[in-house]
């Protein structure tokens, strides 16, 4: 699915990723954990193609293509999805219009005809159920006036609409109470197939009770310093990060 080799990236003069290696195969769930400032969110941003970061070295192959050569929107259409830690508000643009434009762009890319209004509404309805979105949500402007929980649900809802090959969840658990966490995790699990993959970036082990990873990696100072199975997360929960970092 995705192979990251020796990835180095900086913002301004500050190098944040310092030679990161990671391979994720179809059907797998990887969790990336680590203390604040270790580069977790930077990794998500660099993979999604945010322009603020400059990649100075390394390669990223995504489904056989050079990911770093692609614009952010191409990466999306090729099947890479980022669930934002802080989803952005776009006043006046309804969720329906926003998703319609996005789905259209994705379908065009695949050479599929545009959905009819009826088909599109049916699709929205189906996917909304997945994250228990109340119906009004889609009449509202993108993320405008949404609570923290609604924003995160909305990210998973968009993920369901676009059916990505690789989903990166950036701190999707932050700001969620336990019920919302369960709903969001449930949505992500339902979307899991043997053909797609998920990278879960999180600070806490809590989310991993619900989205169970195949692999856990610890990111520190821009590199992966330890990898293991799901037990590693529990060990981290118990002992903290210090024993790994020293």
């Amino acid at each position, binding site marked *: 699915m995705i192979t990251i080799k020796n990835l180095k990236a900086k913002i301004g003069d500050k190098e944040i990723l310092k030679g990161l290696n990671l391979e994720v195969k179809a059907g797998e769930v990887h969790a990336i954990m680590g203390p604040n400032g270790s580069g977790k969110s930077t990794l998500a941003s660099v993979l999604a193609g945010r322009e603020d970061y400059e990649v100075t070295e390394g390669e990223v192959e995504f489904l056989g293509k050079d990911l770093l050569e692609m614009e952010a*929107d191409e990466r999306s259409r090729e099947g890479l999805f980022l669930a934002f830690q802080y989803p*952005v508000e776009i006043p*006046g*643009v309804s969720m329906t219009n926003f998703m319609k*434009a996005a789905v259209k*762009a994705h379908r065009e890319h695949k050479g599929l005809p545009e959905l009819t209004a009826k088909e599109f509404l049916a699709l929205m309805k189906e996917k909304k159920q997945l994250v228990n979105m109340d119906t009004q949500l889609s009449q509202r402007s993108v993320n405008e006036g949404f609570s923290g929980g609604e924003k995160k649900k909305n990210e998973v809802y968009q993920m369901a609409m676009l059916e990505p090959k690789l989903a990166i969840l950036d701190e999707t658990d932050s700001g969620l109470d336990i019920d919302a966490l369960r709903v969001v995790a449930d949505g992500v699990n339902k979307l899991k197939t043997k053909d797609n993959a998920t990278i879960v970036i999180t600070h806490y082990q809590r989310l991993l009770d619900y989205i169970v990873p195949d692999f856990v990696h610890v990111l520190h100072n821009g590199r992966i310093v330890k990898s293991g199975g799901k037990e590693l997360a529990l060990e981290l929960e118990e002992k903290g990060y210090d024993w790994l970092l020293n």
Partner: protein
Amino acid sequence: MKTEDDIMIEDLSSKEYEAGFVTEIEMDILPKGLSEDTVREISRLKKEPEFLLEFRLKAYRHWLTLKEPKWAHVHYPAIDYQDISYFAAPKKQAKYNSLDEVDPALLETYKKLGIPLEEQKLLAGVAVDAVFDSVSVVTTFKEALKEKGVIFSSFSEAAHEHPELIRKYLGSVVPYSDNYFAALNSAVFSDGSFVFVPKGVRCPMELSTYFRINASNTGQFERTLIVAEEGAYVSYLEGCTAPQRDENQLHAAVVEIVALDNAEVKYSTVQNWYPGDKDGKGGIYNFVTKRGICKGHHSKISWTQVETGSAITWKYPSVILRGDYSVGEFYSVAVTNHRQQADTGTKMIHIGKHSRSTIVSKGISIGQSNNSYRGQVKIAKSAEHARNFSQCDSLLVGNRCGAHTFPYIDIENSTGTVEHEATTSKIAEDQIFYCQQRGLDQEQAVSLIVNGFAKEVLNKLPMEFAVEAQKLLAITMEGSVG
């Protein structure tokens, strides 16, 4: 090094003007220059009744005493009023009884502009009057309207067929002495539309006029007069385009609206005059006076405008709220790109008791353009319990454009309520990235965000026009990436 912003702005700024073609057609054009003789000649060519010539001459003589206004936040070289031709008409100019008689080249022009001239478009429910340079070419659906007693015709025709109405209402809202450009228009106006909706009639379809400047070195000075009698309702649409030319062309129109007791007039404009090229060469100077009077109680006048064209726009559609409980509305989206300058807004003059007005203005500045909102809210002594709400939002794309707001508030009655809200924002990189992450390219992202910003106003447009306006916004945002 170019920043992300610069690249984006260049992309956005390189949109092309799609209505920029010229129609080859034989024209009768008056020689350049303006004098009393020119005014008389225009009136003679149009075989006008005596009172109109008198009106023109009074206006011309008054105009000579005026100076061009300089208070607007726009800059342009001095206009040489002797270097303009004040009348241009397609040569084959007989009376048209059906579309078959109209010069095919003209019809082709309107087809290119996407105007539903053919009668078969009846189902679309839009009646069209098309003004080509100075002369009204064809008015569709006249018969259907006639049954209801609605008059919708070219101004010239109305001057012949309904002189009493023209005499009664012409200049009653915008007197020739109102301002420099209104005086000029009153002296040399060529044609335009006349609408009269009699007492108690709801006009059964949207009425629409398309204005087109084709000839070079001519000015267009159209005059529109809309009268809605007691309890009448009419929705009127106006669209404008002009060919791409290197020299500037002057457009000084006057629109007057009269609404009697319980009448409602909705006036929507999609203005797409040629804006000039990206270096600011050419383009239309759009100096327009639009004003309506809510003469009767419970009357309502509503202006909705989408302004994307013109090198310079100087335009303040206004409402005089004379009737008690009358309502004035102004909804505006003005987009400026390249070196365009727009100074636009409204005036709401409250005279009647319990009169209400709403102003929603959305300015979008791109490239090196300047976009100003200028609005006046006046609550006269007599206007007990009058209310106004104004909202002016500006959106900036890039770092080289400007947005300005000049609100004037003048309250002489302490029972009045006036609220003014204003915001200025920049399209955030974050918003664009978010859209891109969902698969939209940068252009689509900006277009979506801008449409969202303008939505409140676009929603006020009649359905068909709203679609056109959205397309127009998208074109304005479009880059020629390649």
